[in-house]
């Protein structure tokens, strides 16, 4: 039925030549283009991410002088020292408390606001704008606003308790309250962004699901737990990991509000890294702490990637 073409030697030779040439054309071009397109980013990341990573890892296995020069190789001794230091374990502990509280509060509050603001009511746009407003507030501004709220003599909370004849709370001098103050400020700062993302996600849940539930007479709380929550769970997961990672990296608010105090109650990881290196000049210790922070962040980022991998194909 079909003509079976005779593959002569000449033909097969010709085709192999042309095949090679074609491959050459494609790759030769792309090679130089890719150097141009990828080169700058690769170079920058190499210099400011990969080199520092290895340098930090390297320093963490030495003792250092006050100029940051490595002196004696100690292997993992720095790590052992850290883990057996009550001071460091305290830092790790307060960081964990902080991360946990910030994440739980940010997500629940964000969810509450987003669910409320997703209702189709007249004027709801105003509330959406108001709730997302903290997104425009930078670290220093947030710190200043809240420092005034917490101020023991002239602060807003102090005034309110005075007016109500209550004993004023020592926000920034009591260890437990200082932690609470930092948590409140962080959550407040996170809220705008979290709210916006969750709202977007809730709005993308198909209306028909709610209509179907409505027809079957499901209450609005039931609708929230049985429809909204499961439908937005990928976003919820995404926002949670971002919040966790950001909380582990907190520095600005702590420096501005408590400076790690009182009595180390808010002396969290990054603040420690900074203090140990740039105040005490203990670069080896600081690098060791930095590697521990890296491991923690990498762990949570990896979880996020694993999850995203299921959702998106990259």
């Amino acid at each position: 039925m079909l003509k079976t073409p005779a593959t002569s030697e000449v033909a097969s030779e010709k085709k192999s030549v042309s095949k090679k040439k074609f491959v050459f054309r494609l790759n030769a071009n792309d090679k130089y283009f890719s150097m141009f397109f990828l080169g700058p980013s690769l170079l920058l990341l190499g210099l400011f991410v990969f080199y520092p990573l290895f340098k930090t890892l390297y320093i963490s296995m030495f003792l250092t002088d006050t100029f940051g020069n490595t002196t004696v190789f100690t292997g993992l001794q720095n790590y052992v020292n850290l883990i057996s230091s009550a001071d460091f374990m305290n830092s790790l502990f307060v960081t964990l408390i902080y991360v946990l509280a910030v994440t739980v509060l940010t997500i629940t509050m964000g969810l509450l606001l987003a669910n409320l603001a997703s209702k189709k009511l007249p004027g709801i746009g105003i509330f959406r704008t108001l709730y997302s407003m903290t997104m425009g507030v930078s670290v220093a501004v947030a710190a200043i606003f809240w420092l005034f709220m917490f101020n023991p003599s002239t602060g807003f909370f102090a005034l309110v308790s005075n007016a109500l004849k209550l004993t004023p709370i020592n926000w920034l001098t009591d260890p437990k309250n200082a932690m609470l103050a930092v948590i409140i400020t962080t959550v407040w700062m996170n809220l705008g962004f979290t709210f916006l993302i969750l709202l977007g996600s809730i709005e993308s849940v198909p209306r028909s699901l709610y209509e179907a539930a409505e027809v079957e007479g499901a209450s609005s709380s039931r609708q929230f737990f049985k429809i909204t929550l499961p439908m937005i769970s990928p976003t919820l997961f995404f926002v949670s990991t971002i919040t966790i990672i950001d909380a582990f990296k907190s520095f600005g608010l702590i420096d501005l509000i408590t400076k790690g105090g009182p009595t180390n109650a808010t002396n969290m990881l990054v603040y420690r890294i900074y203090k140990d290196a740039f105040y005490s000049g203990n670069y080896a210790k600081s690098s060791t702490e930095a590697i521990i922070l890296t491991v923690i962040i990498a762990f949570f980022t990896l979880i996020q990637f694993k999850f995203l991998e299921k959702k998106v194909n990259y």
Partner: protein
Amino acid sequence: MPTILKNVSKEYAQGKKVLDNVSAEIKTGEFFVIVGPSGCGKSTLLRMIAGLTEISDGTIKIEDRVVNDLPPKDRNLTMVFQSYALFPFLSVWDNVAFGLKARQNDAAKIKERVDNALKMVNLEEFSDRKPRELSGGQRQRVALARAVASDAKICLMDEPLSNLDAQLRIKMHQEIYALQRKLGLTLIYVTHDQVEAMTMADHIMVLNDSKIQQVGTPTEIYNHPANEFVASFFGVPPINLMNAKKVSENIALVNKDFEVELAQTIEEENFRIGIRPNQLQVNKADELHANATIKAVEFLGDEKIVHTEMNHGGVISVIVASEAVFDPFESIEITCDDSSKALLFDLDGNNITETQGVAYNA
């Protein structure tokens, strides 16, 4: 100068051929349709002609030049995509001008060509709109205008009408056909729709399973299909294909249910026979003479299609006049009074009808 495909093959993974040894000649100025079911490799073939996909084997010659190693832009052709490939951020006018600008024509020439092309597809008033402000049919026309504006003489189209509704499709058939004739384009058109192929093509290439099944004019392909696949791919409802057994020199027993007198002598003891639905007759019959039962009757306006189940298994469709009255579950007798157009196939599916005698492998 024609476009010649010679022993063209495409292999992605080792041993997994998407196209196997495809050879054909596409004459200058003709409407050439490549048709086949999805996954048969037709789009890959078109992309290889365009230069968007590498050729694993064989040669492609356009106007006497082997183009295997040429990048798409040097092949002097245009392409209309299934999704139209319009740039959403450019106006209609700029979309049409895009290729001309990329090839650095001078402004006056671009303007003349674009205006002309838009006029030809009746989109002059829409030149400032963005693609998203247009209907599907209008977008399709912008894509056409882009091909028209180009000075390339070869135009490739990849299922350009599959995103349109049926009515619009018929209208666009006519417009594309008229444009092709008017501009004298060599048009290579890929579709999975046999009706499109039949109505527009000068020549059709039928692809299936990575291989060419047949190349020929619509008439050749319909009347003298190379094999069972081609026979069943063209025609609505599809041709009835049944097992047949030689009874005497020119009489065959079809599906053990009825006998047909053939216009040729038969050599094979067992073979296959293909009879189009309009070449069969149905008559009501009593239990004794009936050889089939009606399953369903479709009313199409000026005719009816009767779907029947043969007594010895197998489903057959027959076209009858729309006045004929048939109902499901009726017992009937199917006959073939004039078998001159019946097609015979060997058990491998190859056409063995003697009347073929036409070069379907052109």
